[in-house]
């Protein structure tokens, strides 16, 4: 039995369906992420788990018990708010002790656990400080400590890193992973930043307009997106319109208008004749300077229109002869040289027959 079971929940605000028939299971010990663009219903789901809102239809179960009608203070679920929501009139130690006091713990236990948790988030010397005396990163840590101190079954985190600058965000990502591993509390994390989700999560539910588009481990979401929304939302991807000519156990034969035939791998069943697009990542494309002498099975001629030198890699934009614009990534691992092609160069774009994924319309 999963720790948290969400069964067909729907939430309407007037005529807007903010959450549409969402079903998912969250396992104990997991770092689970709800990922999606702003306004897709992530916060609404968290609020229903925390007890600040209730679904119009569907049920939630925690440890097998229904949550309906249970007020927030009775749920063993704590939240880290994006604004941190620290109590301004209490010290750092007072903030962290708050949930323990509410739970009626003894004085000794409160003191011991507060000290332990301060150490856990590296704020041993800040116990007597007030929230307004802290930096953004320190406030973030206090909010985390306060959410974890009373060992909730579930910790909800609503875009907790959103207010931090890029450098700090990266460091906090590392700390979050370490912290979750150390305390073993189940995290439900919400973000609109796909890289953050990929870096942190055990599993990710990609949401769009109140629906779950795909629920998978990060690697699978990245390599085999189920539809165009997921393919587009996670990372960068090239979409090549094509129709299925032949489908077998070994692979697909696709026909791309103006390009010709493409060999692609099979992921699930696709019907011959169906239209769609081959989605392929920039790092799976190779650019060769010899437009006419191809090495791989899938190869198409074009011209370099732009390149972006990013240090470790260079991104090339190549316009194929049928007008399609593709993005290809070249690693700059060789010594000295980092630029292999100039704007206007005739090149061949190539990829393996088992790269990419076909997404039917």
């Amino acid at each position, binding site marked *: 039995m999963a720790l948290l079971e969400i069964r067909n929940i729907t939430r309407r605000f007037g005529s807007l369906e903010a959450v549409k028939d969402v079903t998912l299971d969250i396992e104990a010990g997991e770092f689970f992420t709800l990922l999606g663009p702003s306004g897709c219903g992530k916060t609404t789901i968290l609020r229903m788990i925390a007890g600040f809102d209730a679904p119009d239809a569907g049920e939630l179960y925690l440890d097998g018990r229904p949550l309906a009608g249970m007020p927030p203070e009775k749920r063993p*679920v704590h*939240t880290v*708010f994006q604004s941190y*929501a*620290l*109590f301004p*009139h209490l010290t750092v130690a007072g903030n962290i002790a*708050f*949930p323990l006091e509410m739970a009626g713990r003894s004085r000794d236990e409160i003191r011991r656990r507060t000290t332990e948790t301060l150490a856990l988030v590296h704020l041993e010397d800040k116990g007597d400080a007030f929230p307004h005396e802290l930096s953004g990163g320190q406030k973030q840590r206090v909010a985390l400590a306060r959410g974890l101190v*009373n060992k909730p079954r579930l910790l909800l985190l609503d875009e907790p890193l959103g207010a931090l600058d890029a450098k700090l965000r990266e460091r906090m990502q590392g700390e979050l992973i370490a912290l979750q591993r150390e305390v073993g509390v189940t995290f439900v994390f919400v973000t609109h930043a796909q890289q953050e989700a990929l870096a942190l999560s055990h599993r990710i539910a990609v949401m769009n307009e109140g629906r779950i588009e795909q629920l998978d481990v990060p690697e699978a979401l990245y390599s085999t997106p189920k539809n165009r929304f997921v393919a587009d939302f996670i990372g960068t991807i090239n979409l090549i319109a094509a129709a299925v000519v032949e489908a077998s156990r070994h692979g697909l034969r696709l026909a791309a208008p103006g390009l010709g035939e493409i060999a692609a791998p099979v992921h699930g069943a696709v019907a011959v004749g169906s239209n769609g697009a081959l989605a392929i990542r920039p790092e799976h494309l190779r650019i060769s300077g010899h437009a006419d002498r191809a090495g791989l099975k899938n190869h198409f001629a074009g011209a370099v229109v732009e390149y972006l030198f990013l240090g470790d890699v260079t991104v090339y934009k190549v316009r194929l002869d049928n007008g399609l614009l593709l993005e290809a990534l070249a690693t700059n691992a060789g010594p000295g040289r980092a630029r292999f092609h100039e704007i206007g160069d005739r090149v061949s774009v190539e990829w393996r027959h088992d790269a990419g994924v076909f997404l039917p319309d």
Partner: protein
Amino acid sequence: MKRGFWLWAAGLATYAFLYVPLAVVVLFSFNDSELNASWVGFTTRWYGKLLGDADLLQAAANSLLIAIVSSTIATVLGTMAGIALHRWRPPLLPFLVLTPVAMPEILLGVSLLLFFRQVLDLTLGLFSILAAHITFSLGFVAIIVRARLAGMDESIFEAARDLGATPWRTFTRVTFPLIVPGIVAGFLMSFTLSIDDFVITFFVAGVGVTTLPLQIYSLIKVAVTPEVNAISTLLMALTLTLIALALRFAPETLRKSA
């Protein structure tokens, strides 16, 4: 440069206009002469004379009692109103609560008088004065408390619930401590308004009970004696102290509600 000079001049003139008359009152309360005409010498005998004036002492005692009772009740009710206005954001209620604040005093005085006499058929006296003072103070407290709440991150109240606090404990542990400065400022404000009020009290006091401002008014109908200067000076000192305290407790709250 020039603009700065004129601004300074205008500012100085304004302050002079406000405070010179007050300074004259204070000065002449220490003047050793029956007439408010010219400076004769320093004395504190007018203050001593105040202590012998039984009517004045009774009026001062009434004023203090009314101020303490009315501002306490107005603070409790006004705080509840301020919280309710913030939490439920009712459409018409803010308007109704804030009306007494903006309403011309004379209108409020007349309408309260009519209400007490015609509708309730009340004998005017201590009770009607109290009711009137509570009526006009309550709105100020509500505004200050609401402004205090509006300046706060809403999510801290949800955070309290989320971390295991019942609604009541959320109030006692989070909401109340955070609005205390606003409540204190509101109380001091009500107290000042009550102890100084003349117009409304004049209408609803009836014949039995006199307050300090009413008593001063009846004294100056005869003549502006040094005794009046002395009692005015004391009242002024009390008012300024209360305002200073209110500003000290919640400067940002007052600025927001102003």
